[in-house]
């Protein structure tokens, strides 16, 4: 469970997250939507302690993030908004192995996780390719594989569908569905609900760093346009 209480985050004078409360239960799939600049990315970066609160607190599985960074980062894996920022190694396989290696697993476990994660995003058999020869869509999938290899309790994806073509989107979506069925909780950040309605249990919409709406996908539609989000086709 991820619990956010009274979280405030400021960049200079901008208040990006403003006294926000939110709880994400185990196994839940939450879509986090909101216009550009509404604070989505800032919020999720607190889930694994990449940012420090100016006020309030965040806990993961009952332990404060700030005091248990390793635990938080093992429990919460993250796919960044710009996946090309996220790759740390020169080849596909080495990049996916980076996280598991840091967990101190055995080589066999690492290899298993690497091949499973690559298969999940349709990159199997490409472990030896260089990351800088991948297309935009492939980089996104590789970033997802790197996060999956952490076998996290909670997976946070910051706008994972931008730049993906339809087959890739379908395959990522299918994999996310599987994860959800297997009990991993998902937080999918987007400003385009068309991509994720099939997946969501719950839609949370941010506006100016606060929760403006927290409801089921079915009930979300009416107010979305006001909040700067493209509603899913209503037919």
């Amino acid at each position, binding site marked *: 469970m991820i619990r956010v209480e009274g979280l405030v985050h400021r960049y200079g004078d901008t208040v990006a997250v403003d006294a926000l409360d939110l709880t994400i239960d185990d196994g839940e799939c939450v879509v986090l939507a909101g216009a550009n600049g509404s604070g989505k990315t800032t919020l999720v970066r607190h889930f694994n302690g990449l940012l420090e609160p100016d006020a309030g607190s965040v806990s993961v599985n009952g332990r404060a993030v700030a005091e248990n960074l390793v635990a938080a980062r093992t429990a919460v894996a993250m796919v960044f908004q710009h996946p090309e920022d996220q790759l740390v190694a*020169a080849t596909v396989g080495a990049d996916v192995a980076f996280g598991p290696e840091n967990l101190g697993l055995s080589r066999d476990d690492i290899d298993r996780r690497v091949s499973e994660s690559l298969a999940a995003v349709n990159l199997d058999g490409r472990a030896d390719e*260089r990351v*800088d*020869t991948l297309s935009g869509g492939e980089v996104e999938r590789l970033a997802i594989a790197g996060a999956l290899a952490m076998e996290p309790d909670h997976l946070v994806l910051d706008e994972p569908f931008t730049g993906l073509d339809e087959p890739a989107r379908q395959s990522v979506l299918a994999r996310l569905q599987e994860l959800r069925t297997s009990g991993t909780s998902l937080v999918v950040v987007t400003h385009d609900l068309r991509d994720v309605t099939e997946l969501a249990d719950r839609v949370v919409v941010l506006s100016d760093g606060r929760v403006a709406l927290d409801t089921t996908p079915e009930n979300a539609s009416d107010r979305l346009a006001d909040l700067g989000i493209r509603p899913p086709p209503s037919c």
Partner: protein
Amino acid sequence: MATEHESVELVGDELVGNIARAALFAALMGAGAYVSFPNPISPIPVTLQVLVVFLAGIFLGPIWGGVSISLYLVAGGLGAPVFAGGSAGFGALVGPTAGYLWSYPLAAALVGFLVHGTELGDYRVGTVRLVGAMVAGTAVIYALGVIGFAFVQNVGLGAAFWTAAAAFIPAEAFKIAAAVGIVRSDAIAAN
């Protein structure tokens, strides 16, 4: 309508690519200067500038590596916040760390020359050559840095050596190791 621009002399494709790289390496150098840690025994901070100087020589070669770091100095002199800790302006170019700053383009060119010769080739050379090139570059940086510090601050060379060179040798060893790591890991496609 297109005929009215007949006199435009386009910059050649290859040169455009090199200018873009030189400018972005100069910006990377500025970002490296911003990563700055106080040194307990010297007023001069530990920064990543020297690492970027190495990388400019290794990845851009002697000519464009040197050009890139020179561009960095010009931009900084004109007010870009690219010097240690994000400072800016002409003052730094004649201040206590001026010796280092003026040495950087020379060091980048020297590293580039020792790795590539005069033509930019494959940067993946033997470790000994790579480390040797960076040690030579470091020597140039320290020599000019110490002389500059002694001259601008009006102190003796001995005192300057301790504050402006000896205090940094361990940090430089890390940067050389990091640069070797980058080259060895094949992290960047060869040109």
